[in-house]
């Protein structure tokens, strides 16, 4: 199997340790990664989508054409990239007006959107194309009952009609929990599991309100699950859950810290990657829980 790696912005520049984890996990599972050389930002909501609908879709479509020329699907670990690129393709395919304007714009650079490649979310791609049983075969370190609070992320769930992969019931997602359980962890339900983390446009607009959302979410995790680890499916959720706790502690809003990592980082550790390379840029203290995993 070969896929194009759509790296995006936050993974490449904020959390390259997550990029490193992708580059460890996929080849180790026998999935070759293509660089999709020349890819750009997806782009997400605060930029082109807020200016020009067809212009947004054209920038997204340019990324698709790179994958189409190679006959590959794209995989991303970022919910925002997944959401933007999935919606781009969905809009082009369902609206002839958008499609003709997009191809008119792409004509300027000698390209055309054909619709033959898809954007896949790493969490769902691993679940569908690799599968829980195969994943288990590649695990060197079991999680031995480690307790995880999962954060799937909004953009892997809605709008469900734009996505290739998904959940049976998007308001009761199970895939990320099942993937954690496959590594030997427990990943119980908690009442705020579905809540938004507060990253994105909200954090840029009003940090206090954004932190209020993440605080509510963290409290629910803490009180109902008492987790050893938070595992996200999205790089934006990762940044919020990893960085906001320090602010909340300094403000006296919380008196604990729960280490937070992306599922692909967790998988990389379980498969034997160097923890420093695949989680080394975390602000929360992941060392102790990583050592616990490595010591069995």
């Amino acid at each position, binding site marked *: 199997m070969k896929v194009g790696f759509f790296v995006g912005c936050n993974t490449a520049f904020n959390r390259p340790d997550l990029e490193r984890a992708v580059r460890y996990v996929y080849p180790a599972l026998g999935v070759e990664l293509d660089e999709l050389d020349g890819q750009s930002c997806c782009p997400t909501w*605060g930029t082109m*989508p807020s*200016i020009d609908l067809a212009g947004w879709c054209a920038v997204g479509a340019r990324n698709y054409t790179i994958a189409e020329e190679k006959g590959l699907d794209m995989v991303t670990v970022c919910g925002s990239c997944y959401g933007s690129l999935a919606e781009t393709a969905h809009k082009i395919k369902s609206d002839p007006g958008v499609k003709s304007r997009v191809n008119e714009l792409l004509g*300027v650079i000698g390209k055309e959107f054909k619709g033959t490649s898809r954007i896949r979310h790493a969490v769902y791609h691993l679940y569908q194309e690799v599968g829980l049983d195969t994943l288990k075969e590649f695990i060197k370190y079991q999680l031995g009952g480690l307790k995880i609070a999962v954060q799937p992320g909004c953009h892997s769930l809605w709008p469900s009609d734009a996505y290739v992969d998904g959940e049976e019931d998007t308001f009761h997602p199970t895939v990320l929990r099942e993937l954690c359980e496959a590594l030997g962890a427990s990943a119980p339900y908690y009442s705020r599991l579905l809540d938004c983390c507060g990253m994105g446009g*909200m954090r840029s607009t009003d940090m206090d*309100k954004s932190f209020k959302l993440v605080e509510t979410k963290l409290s629910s995790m803490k009180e109902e699950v008492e987790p050893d680890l938070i595992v996200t499916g999205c790089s934006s959720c990762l940044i919020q859950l990893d960085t906001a706790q320090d602010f909340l502690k300094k403000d006296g809003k919380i008196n604990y810290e729960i280490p937070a990592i992306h599922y692909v980082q967790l998988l990389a550790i379980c498969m034997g990657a160097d923890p420093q390379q695949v989680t080394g840029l975390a602000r929360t203290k992941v060392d102790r829980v990583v050592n616990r995993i490595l010591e069995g």
Partner: protein
Amino acid sequence: MSSTPEEERKTINLSTGDSGFLSEIKALGAGDILECIQCAKCAATCPLVLAGFNFFNKRIIQAIFLGTRETLLDDPSIWACQSCNRCTEVCPRKLKPFEVIMAMRRVAVREFALPTMAIEGIKSLYDVGHAVYLSQAGRSRASVGLPERPYSTASNPRALKELQALLGKTALADLGIIPMGGPDVSGTCEVGQ
């Protein structure tokens, strides 16, 4: 009965409603807005409501129906939308409330009523091909064994030129929000959108 200044500020004079507002919103991506019956199912799922913003899907649509353009332009709520699409998923009238918020942002952009962070993200998208770009990221990338720049427009000048040519044909070029001359990769832009 006389009202306090606080109460006066909350009064909306419907006779001054902007009748062209609705058609502008429809043309900018919210063609199905009139399907809205104000049932508030969207509001019940909205993170903006949970976080306590003044405006959110249902109220934004209501304000558009009332033609109170300035009220929405003066309020930051539309820019705090998480684009999560919970509203679009649950809307019983299938009108895609999220698309209304994006159409409202497009109206705001045409009046230059957009946040500085958005302008910085747009500039960074044009200059480097990434809305979020940290010029010092090369060091942290190297620390985890990666090349200083990813295999993107950030390290491929031909691809960046291509992207810039494309952006030059979109509404971005007509609006003049950012200088669209040559590449400038020296800056840093950290936005979360």
